[in-house]
């Protein structure tokens, strides 16, 4: 890390602490101040050429402000620290007239186990030369006999700081990339993605190749009759559905009735025993890696569902007190949320999964997942891109779009 960068990190933390000091002087009994300073570049591709190159520089200041068990949360997108402090001080008159929060809990004291993440040099390099990455990806795509490609590359770098009235004083840097590409051929298409905290050119090339191969293999799809089929869901489809389930594990969503876990008990069997779902923000390569949560607690790996059994909900200190447990370090200032979901892999290869299916469908991508009822888990989602009919253990043909409609609990 360059000396200049280190200095910027220190400056951000210093400003954070100064804002905290001023806020506390205004008369709050507790507060947390967090500053996020980021820069992002995004290149979008459509019809095999760039459509727009976007560049953002942003400062966001978030604060948790409490007095007499009354809570306010503010989020200011401005670089004007003066304006931020002024607005935060004004909130004092607002919280003085509201009731005590049933979710109030004292801000946790900082814990020592804290290893800040840094920005990998590959991200720094990618940030400077996104055009080379896009150029290479297009070259890889057009080694195949395809019609056109569309996609997106985003690289973000930033500094995240936190200071709390219980003495937390934390700062970390982050750098991530996200890439997805959709390739079109005839009536078919394929989409694949890659993301993380270490940028590797070969991951971009691999995602591009998978998308191109799916596009070609699905270029002449046929229609089939709706019915009951076994389905093999690709990591992208399963990821989409697990995202829904992961958000439902937030204790506040459970309390609010936005979850299939509402009314269920810890230790109860809630999903198939093949499912072990964890939230793992401390995997250093994960796109969602983060070393401290919004209340300044060091993050940790939490197993939410183990072999189909609900092991824990995701908590901040407020929902934890309400549920009589400890925080799982998943704070949001009000609502807890997952950082980085991970489904425990099984022992099969994709080919082995296909080989055991008599009458089924391989779904490579989906979108538009909507729920009729969050407690009952009734949902539907539409497939998109390559979709294959599997008969007696073999892919027999590409098929046209279908809709999956079921209950999440049946997955």
């Amino acid at each position: 890390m360059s000396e200049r960068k280190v200095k910027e990190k220190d400056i951000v933390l210093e400003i954070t602490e100064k804002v905290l000091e001023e806020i506390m002087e205004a008369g709050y009994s507790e507060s947390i101040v967090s500053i996020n300073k980021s820069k992002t570049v995004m290149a979008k591709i459509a019809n095999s050429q760039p459509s727009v190159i976007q560049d953002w520089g942003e400062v966001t200041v978030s604060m948790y402000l409490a007095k007499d068990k009354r809570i306010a949360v503010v989020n200011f997108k401005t670089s004007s620290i003066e304006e931020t402090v002024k607005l935060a001080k004004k909130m004092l008159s607002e919280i003085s007239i509201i009731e005590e929060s049933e979710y109030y809990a004292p801000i946790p004291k900082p814990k020592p186990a804290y290893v800040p993440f840094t920005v990998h040099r590959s991200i720094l390099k990618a940030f400077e030369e996104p055009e080379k990455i896009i150029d290479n990806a297009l070259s890889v795509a057009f080694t195949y006999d395809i019609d056109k490609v569309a996609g997106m590359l985003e690289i973000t770098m930033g500094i995240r700081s936190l200071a709390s009235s219980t003495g937390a004083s934390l700062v970390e840097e982050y750098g991530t990339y996200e890439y997805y590409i959709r390739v079109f051929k005839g009536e078919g298409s394929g989409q694949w993605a890659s993301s993380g905290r270490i940028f590797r050119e070969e991951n971009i090339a691999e995602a591009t190749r998978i998308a191109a191969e799916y596009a070609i293999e699905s270029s002449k799809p046929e229609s089939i009759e709706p019915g009951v089929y076994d389905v093999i869901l690709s990591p992208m489809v399963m990821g989409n559905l697990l995202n829904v389930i992961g958000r439902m594990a937030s204790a506040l969503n459970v309390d609010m009735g936005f979850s299939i876990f509402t009314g269920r008990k810890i230790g109860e069997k809630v999903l198939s025993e093949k499912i072990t779902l964890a939230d793992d923000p401390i995997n250093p390569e994960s796109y969602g890696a983060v070393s401290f949560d919004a209340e300044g607690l060091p993050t940790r790996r939490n197993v939410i569902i183990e072999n189909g059994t609900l092991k824990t909900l995701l908590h901040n200190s407020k929902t934890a007190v309400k549920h009589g447990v400890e925080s799982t370090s998943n704070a949001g200032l009000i609502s807890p949320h997952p950082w980085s979901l991970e489904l425990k892999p099984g022992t099969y290869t994709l080919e082995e999964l296909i080989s055991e299916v008599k009458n089924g469908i391989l779904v490579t991508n989906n979108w538009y997942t909507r729920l009729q009822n969050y407690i009952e888990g009734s949902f539907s989602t539409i497939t998109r891109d390559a979709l294959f009919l599997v008969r007696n253990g073999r892919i027999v043909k590409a098929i046209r779009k279908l809709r999956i409609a079921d209950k999440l609990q049946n997955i």
Partner: protein
Amino acid sequence: MKIEILMISRGLKGEPMIDETILEHIVARGVKLGANYVEVRYHKHRGSYAVTRMNKTISVGKVFSEGVAIRVLVKGSLGFASTNNVSKDSLERALEKAVSRAKAFSYMYAEPISFADAKTVTYSYEVKPVKDFNNVSIGEKIGFYKEVYNSLEASLMQSTEKGTIQRMYELGASGGLELLDKWDIVSRVAEEAKMLEKVLLKGKSPPKGKIDVILGSEIVGLMVHESAGHPSEADRILGREAAQAGESFIKKGMLGKRIGSEASTVIDDPTIPGSYGYYLYDDECVEARPKYLYKNGIINEHLHNRWTAKVFNTVSNGSARAMDYTSEPIIRMSNTYFKPGDYSFKELLEDIRVGVYIKSYMEWNIDDVRWSQRYVGLEAYLIENGEIKEPIRNPVIELTTKGFYESVDAADKSLEFHAGTCGKGEPHQGVPVWFGGPNVRLRNIVLGVAPY
């Protein structure tokens, strides 16, 4: 070389805005740096909210944002930069970034980007609230919420034997807090909850097979948003959103083709006073006007910005919107609705022997070319011999866009709008829209049922 500049400021009445001479300076500097189109847009937003559960307040909150978006065309390459440091130095750096990033990619364009000519103007407008948000304390706002909650609680039996039913509904418009009185939320929520309770406790399975269906305004509004509005976005038609929201079943050259019955007319109109999707000039400074997307069953007009207008050899119809200072203007809907007909609701019902009336929904989805769609009814009733009978549970209509518009044989005279936040773009931009329509009648629809 033709050089164009645009400046847009969006702020809050009575509050300091950015010094517009700084924006002028950035525009002039952009031209010097080699851009032949420069657009500088300033936004200042404030918001206030409370998080509540049952009849308790968990927390109150405020959001604030202020920043500038810059868009440039350099050598046929489109660059965008945004910052929330609104100092002159910072804006200069953002401009340089937009220009240098655009330049770095310019060699990859097989078809360089250019914009259609547009008559741009200097114009200013505001929405005047009758009851100003700032003059109502957070205490009063929470008090209003509690009144709604209490009337809801009082209206229900709280039985859990038949599981649960959930409903989300959004109200939105341009104006002030006087709208809360107009909407009469207290009695509306209580009445609706009572009705849903009936659906939950007494709802029967819907009839099977091909039947006639009357769709209520809320679901008709959603359907025209999804199956007329989105596919009419010319950027989707041209493939600009192919890796995100998808493409469109409408292709270039399909204007004039039949998509539905004579009764099917869909309009997008940003100029409706007081609407949630209200604007008079879009974010490329083009004057807004109503657009007849489908007219008497014919694909009539697409939603255009200045780039798609150029490709289609037409002029922009003012459909470019940006969510905030972090967002590029892209083609969006505003207030999209199915044009009412001349029937009464009774006349729609009277010759239906067996059918269903679907009034509201929760789950829906549509494929990425906006062709195959599914809607699951929430408040829905059986129709027998021209009369509305008992409630039914989770009726499903699954049909194609053409299947929908071809099946419409009549619409009643009513027109209601519903509020929503329409999502599109990468990064995701949510913009306020209305969607609406009358009650419409569809003939011979295959009805399904979702699990409950």
